[in-house]
């Protein structure tokens, strides 16, 4: 029962958010660009974060997120009030990402791509954690390890893991966004977690 008030507050917040989304999209459908800007303000961080964890590139993530909002405006007349805005945004984002993957080879290849400081990814993965290094350097090291581990996942598993872990979405919503059965989402998530635990074992044990 201890969760009761918190859960109901969270539920009320979500309902308010959904109602505001609905009102904003109704305005966008009528061609109100300022309503779209309000939606941008509301979801830009989420979408940039989504793309960032998929490609590991800040600028590219910003461009892709911007493209999602332009497509929302372009498709505004096709939006149905029955569809939740967040799910709809992620479906557009997912399709944009699939197009990106088709157009070019994967961004991160362990053999060819280099980390931001010029090291190859397998060197980064093999390197010992810089325990004595200053905080910033250690954070950079952690970031590179996490990005390399995510990049090594198959694209389907990576997307499910990012939507679940970073965006905090439930399996049902992820299945709707990706157009796959919920069981497949769950199985991809389990495989992704197992692979990430193997690749980042030393970092996870540090704190356990």
């Amino acid at each position, binding site marked *: 029962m201890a969760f009761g008030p918190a859960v109901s507050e969270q539920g009320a917040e979500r309902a308010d958010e959904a109602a505001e989304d609905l009102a904003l999209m109704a305005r966008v459908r009528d061609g109100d660009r300022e309503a*779209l800007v309000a939606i941008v303000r509301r979801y830009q961080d989420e979408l940039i974060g989504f793309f960032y964890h998929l490609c590991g590139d800040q600028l590219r993530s910003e461009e892709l997120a911007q493209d999602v909002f*332009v497509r929302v405006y372009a498709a505004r007349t096709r939006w149905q009030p029955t569809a939740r805005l967040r799910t709809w945004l992620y479906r557009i984002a997912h*399709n944009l990402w699939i197009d990106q993957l088709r157009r070019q080879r994967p961004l991160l290849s362990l053999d060819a791509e280099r980390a931001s400081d010029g090291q190859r990814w397998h060197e980064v993965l093999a390197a010992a954690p810089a325990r004595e290094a200053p905080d910033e350097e250690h954070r950079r090291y952690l970031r590179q390890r996490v990005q390399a581990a995510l990049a090594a996942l198959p694209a389907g598993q990576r997307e499910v893991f990012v939507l*679940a872990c970073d965006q905090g979405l439930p399996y049902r919503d992820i299945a709707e966004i990706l*157009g796959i059965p919920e069981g497949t989402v769950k199985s991809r*998530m389990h495989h992704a977690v197992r692979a990430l635990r193997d690749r980042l074992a030393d970092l*996870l044990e540090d704190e356990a």
Partner: protein
Amino acid sequence: MNEDPLLAAVQRGDPRCPDGRALARLGALVRADRPRSVDLCARVRAALPADDHALAGLDPWGKTPPPPLWARRGRASAPRARRLAAIWSALSGPGPRWHLPLWLCLALLAVLAVVLLLFGALQRAAPPAP
């Protein structure tokens, strides 16, 4: 409420999962890697053309078809849904969406022509009525 302990552990550090602490740490590690916060409002405003009609050709689904209904309703396996999506994608091609109906019309015409040819051949081959 999501009941999968693994998801709960990664998302919120739920201790019901046997390896809850390690999974919570994994989730925290991934979430700690945040992109810089950027305001896209001005860029989105600038990216929208003054004339809404200029956006008419922009497909929100890109080159990828929307998730097929048959996969969502569980009428086909995911691999089959992917194959159907690939066929759809191949037929749609890089051009406009009317490519698919055009191909369907051409296929129907071809079938009709074959049937007419067969019918004509059978008529000729049949012995004359006494």
